[in-house]
């Protein structure tokens, strides 16, 4: 266990070192696409910075999931990672082990667990995460491969930096058409927020 952890620490140090050494004007080659829920051709896009351990992210995601499902030709949802609690980064990297529907399936399972436990994320144990991964067609091996992938850790860090630069200080951070919709977090009245978002998207 120690050697595994040390190997991880060394690889992480290597990643950080490589990032420092590799300074240059270029963007990373073959940049991974942010996960998109819904149809890419939908003319409107909600952009969400969320945390896998935040129950409020889970609540808003439930609303947005429903909106995209009921307005598929109108709006899609783009996900960005915004880790807020200690275990978050690895959970987000685990999510990036999956693509398309399986990414969203994994995301629903993790956020569902956090919501079910009233915001407690201690239940997101390695065994539970592996269980979610298997349910989405993954395995402990695919999770290990994701954890070893520098590009996935970079993707999470990149999202965190972007979110911070956009002013996100708490999750969830929702953006639409150049507006930061939730700088104080989500409204307590979720039903009214759902209604207002749908009215906004129905315009134009």
């Amino acid at each position, binding site marked *: 266990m*120690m050697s595994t952890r040390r190997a991880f620490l060394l690889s992480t140090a290597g990643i*950080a070192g490589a990032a420092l050494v590799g300074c240059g*004007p270029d963007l990373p080659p073959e940049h991974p696409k942010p996960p998109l829920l819904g149809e890419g051709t939908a003319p409107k896009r909600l952009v969400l910075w969320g945390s896998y351990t935040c129950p409020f992210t889970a609540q808003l995601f439930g609303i947005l999931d429903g909106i995209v499902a009921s307005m598929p030709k109108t709006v899609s949802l783009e996900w960005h990672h915004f880790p807020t609690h*200690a275990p978050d980064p690895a959970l987000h990297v685990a999510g990036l082990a999956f693509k398309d529907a399986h990414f969203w399936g994994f995301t629903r399972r993790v956020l569902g667990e956090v919501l079910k436990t009233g915001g407690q994320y201690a239940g997101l144990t390695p065994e539970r995460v592996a269980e979610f991964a298997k349910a989405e067609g993954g395995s402990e091996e695919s999770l290990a491969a994701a954890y070893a992938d520098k590009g996935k850790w970079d993707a999470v860090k990149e999202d965190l930096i972007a979110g*911070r630069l956009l002013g996100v200080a708490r999750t969830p951070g929702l953006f639409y058409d*150049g*507006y930061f919709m939730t700088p104080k977090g989500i409204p307590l009245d979720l039903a009214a927020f759902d209604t207002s978002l749908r*009215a906004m998207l129905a315009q134009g």
Partner: protein
Amino acid sequence: MGKKLACGGVLILGLAVVFVDAHADSTTREKTKPSPEVSAPNDPTTLSSGFWADWNRTKSSANFAALTTAVGCGCGPAADGAQNQGKATVDIAITRPAEAAQFMSESVASSEDPVSNAALATVINMRISPDVQQAAAPLVAAEAKARVEEFRANLSTGIPGLPGIYLGEHADGGERPGLPEGYTPVAGGSMGCPSRY
């Protein structure tokens, strides 16, 4: 003898490394308190510790401070997004070409690594529509022009989205409404998870 000493030295060094590592584990657990049990190899908190160490270095770096100043997010170590805290909705769009040119010149000059560059590309896409970017290009500071051009050529953050998918073109350099059309702010308080790091 020399060989025994060398082996002993390696053993002591090895034990010291194990002690330091075990202590680091203990410190991490105390800070995050995920569970009283010993962390499993794939424990998300343990796996994430290197990320947070790297993030803390990034967050406290002069380069990140310069970047946060350049984008005016109020998100540096001292401000921490406080400028947005009292507002229900914030218009982040930059619609005037001159302002966009200044934003791109200063922010691009402050971004020095691939991860920050990609993050900044997302920010620029979210705040400046393609038309305004185009209009701003000739106004970019001479010393930053080449880098901004290179940046704009690589601005896609992955999804080959529709033009203006993040930011509609209705602004046309003028004032935007304070709220998205059709949106009614919801009264009665709000809730969220503050960033701990």
